[in-house]
């Protein structure tokens, strides 16, 4: 494998991890907000119980992703930074509000509602901003003025594909978080929350798939290259759809205790669905980082530096495996944590 191909594969893997963790994180924040005030309170508790210990780790994965882009593809920095300054800048600004207010709500009871609403809503806008980067890379939204790249805000903001991408991002975020929290609620044996999240998974699943398909049809003219590539990878996308159908079907299976839904199996299938879809989309996006201005080969660092970074990654994640295991045991498995009142 070419070193640059390896680098982009790692990058897509990190993107996959962050898109899942980020969906869970922002989604849980959203559900925590929605159910924070009314009688279906346990759904909110489950969401917050998941969120409290995990948000820091999720946040680190965002930083890992950004640093990896810059260090693996330093020659792409100038173009990416000039074009993405505003969307990414606003993204981190909102992320700061969201993170701090989310933590502060546990320390200032009297202002809890205000803090919760602010963090919940910003949590909804951030993924929308982040996902708006995707259409920018497809082509047609970047122009060069006296040698410097500029994002064409007018074109972007008036193009339907931006809004379809945002809808796609939101529906995916909510679907992934709902189906995961359903499983988390089952682990906590909180059947009230379980039913709530199952109910949401049921409508969000088909909606997210429909929106994903519609989004492709709104791609700008300049993006015909990727539409062709997507059609070439139809087997992978078909497989992803199959995973979704199986996972979705698992939600209906009746168990001995009379409850519907094989939560864990459904979560795994949906995870597979997105893994396959993200890698297939990544493959279809090759060789461009931003079409037609920069390819992965143009942006790639020198291979020697890259291989040293790989060693850092291997050692780093190696050291962290026991820590992650402990983390998982304490917050995703330990009944004493899951079932506390």
């Amino acid at each position, binding site marked *: 494998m070419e070193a640059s191909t390896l680098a982009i594969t790692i990058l897509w893997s990190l993107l996959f991890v962050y898109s899942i963790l980020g969906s869970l994180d922002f989604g849980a924040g959203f559900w925590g907000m929605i159910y924070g005030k009314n009688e279906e309170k346990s759904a909110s508790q489950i969401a917050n119980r998941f969120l409290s*210990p995990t948000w820091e780790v999720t946040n*680190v994965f965002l930083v890992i992703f950004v*640093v990896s882009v810059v260090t693996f*593809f330093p*020659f792409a*920095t100038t173009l990416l930074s000039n074009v993405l300054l505003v969307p990414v*800048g606003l993204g981190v600004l909102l992320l700061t509000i969201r993170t701090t207010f989310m933590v502060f709500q546990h320390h200032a009871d009297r202002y809890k509602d205000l803090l919760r609403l602010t963090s919940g809503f910003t949590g909804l806008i951030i993924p929308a901003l982040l996902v708006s980067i995707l259409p920018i890379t497809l082509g047609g939204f970047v122009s060069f003025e006296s040698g410097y790249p500029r994002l064409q805000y007018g074109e972007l903001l008036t193009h339907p594909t931006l809004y379809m991408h945002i809808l796609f991002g939101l529906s995916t975020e909510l679907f992934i978080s709902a189906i995961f929290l359903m499983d988390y609620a089952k682990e906590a044996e909180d059947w009230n929350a379980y039913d709530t999240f199952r109910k949401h998974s049921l409508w969000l699943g088909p909606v997210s798939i429909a929106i994903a398909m519609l989004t492709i049809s709104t791609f700008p003219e300049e993006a015909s290259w990727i539409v062709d590539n997507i059609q070439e990878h139809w087997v992978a996308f078909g497989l992803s759809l199959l995973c979704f159908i199986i996972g979705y079907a698992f939600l209906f299976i009746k168990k001995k205790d009379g409850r519907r839904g094989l939560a864990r199996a459904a979560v795994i299938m949906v995870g597979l669905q997105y893994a396959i879809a993200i890698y297939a989309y990544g493959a279809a996006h090759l060789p461009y980082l931003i079409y037609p201005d920069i390819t992965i080969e143009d942006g790639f660092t020198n291979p020697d530096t890259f291989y040293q970074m790989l060693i850092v990654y291997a050692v780093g994640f190696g050291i962290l495996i026991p820590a992650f295991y402990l983390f998982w045991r304490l917050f995703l498995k330990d009944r004493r944590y899951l079932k506390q009142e």
Partner: protein
Amino acid sequence: MDIVVMARALFGTSLGFHIIYATIGVGLPVMIIIAEVLHFIKKDPDYALMAKRWTKGFAILLAVSIASGTIVGVMISLLFPDFMEIVGQVIALPFQMEIFAFLIEAVFMSIYLYAADRLPPTLRLVSIISVALGATASAILITDVHAWMNTPAGFNITPNGEITDVDTWAAFFNPSFGVTALHVTLSAYMTVAFLIASIAALRLMRSKISKAERAYHKKALTIALYFGALMSLATAVNGHETAQMLHEYNPRKLAAAEGLFETQRYAPLSVGGYTSLEDQRVKYAVEIPYGLSFLAGDRLDTEVMGLNEWPEELWPPLYVHILFNVMVGIGTVLIMISFLALFWKHVLKKEFPSWLLATLVVSGPLAMLAIETGWCFSCIGRQPWTINEVLRTDEAATKSNSVGFLFYLFMTLYITLLFVTGFVMRYYFKRNPVRKDLEAREV
């Protein structure tokens, strides 16, 4: 305004904001470890309570620290893309290692915060030690990149800007890495010690305070004073080494720090005052004869280079002399305050008089001011370069004209957050005073 100026202003304020919380994030876990260990040894429940309360404060501040750290990490790529292009080729390793250190800190912080009651004492100690190690390691690793900007190493650059002959480890262990990393770490430890001393002193100044509360705050103050005295002394020794490093690798910055125009042996050290361009000297300063030569090379006849060795457009702004003096001045005052207080306690064996307590109250904010001026000195003193003598700041900065609008937006965010964090801290600790915790223990 000029895009370069706005980009620097935006990044500078972001870093200036982050550094407050980051410094606390590096130092506070160490204070928590000290309290945990003292509790382990002395079995005095006051120390357990201290660790618990400091952890609560840490949890609040950590949210801002992590969020603003994310801003800084993203912003440096957005605002200085041509700088990151070189960083990605030469000094990417510490950046990546830093993330793993950060990840270790994040994972164990969650464990310590949300699972402490389910962990055996040893594993709890392991968690908080991992938090401290992760935090200190991230500080050291990110400082490595800063050190490399001051004393770049491990690559060649062709006249058309192409990077060749990359040696990542030579870049990693660049000449100023050791001293600078130590300086950042020690000064962070020192600052948090004085912040704790400030809070304890403030509480002790109140007249309405129970005996148990008084005992509690005295213990906290004692820990803070010992640790603060030790760290401020160590920072000073290390500061001396830093000056010698500047003399050897970055003489222009040293010349600007000291307001020295003419290269000379037996150079005097100017304390205070401001650097006057017309007079080519520091005005209104106290001069210590031979001081600078001695500082730079441990000998009175050390030749110290003056600013006139370089064309004026390569000089940093002359006000860095003031920044440098504020940093060093505060450092000196802190050593004196902490040793005086310890002298009072152990030699005179007397209660602290209220003027001494009042001095201790300001020690924490002073220490933080020294941190801020230190960072400003180090970054402004490197101008007009981003990577010393390799890449100028005006070449490194973005050309995007949206920077101005983002600057005002982020300024609003930082000011708001400073107030909100202060408010939440006050609110939380007002509702959960030490008294309440102590009484709950009695029952």
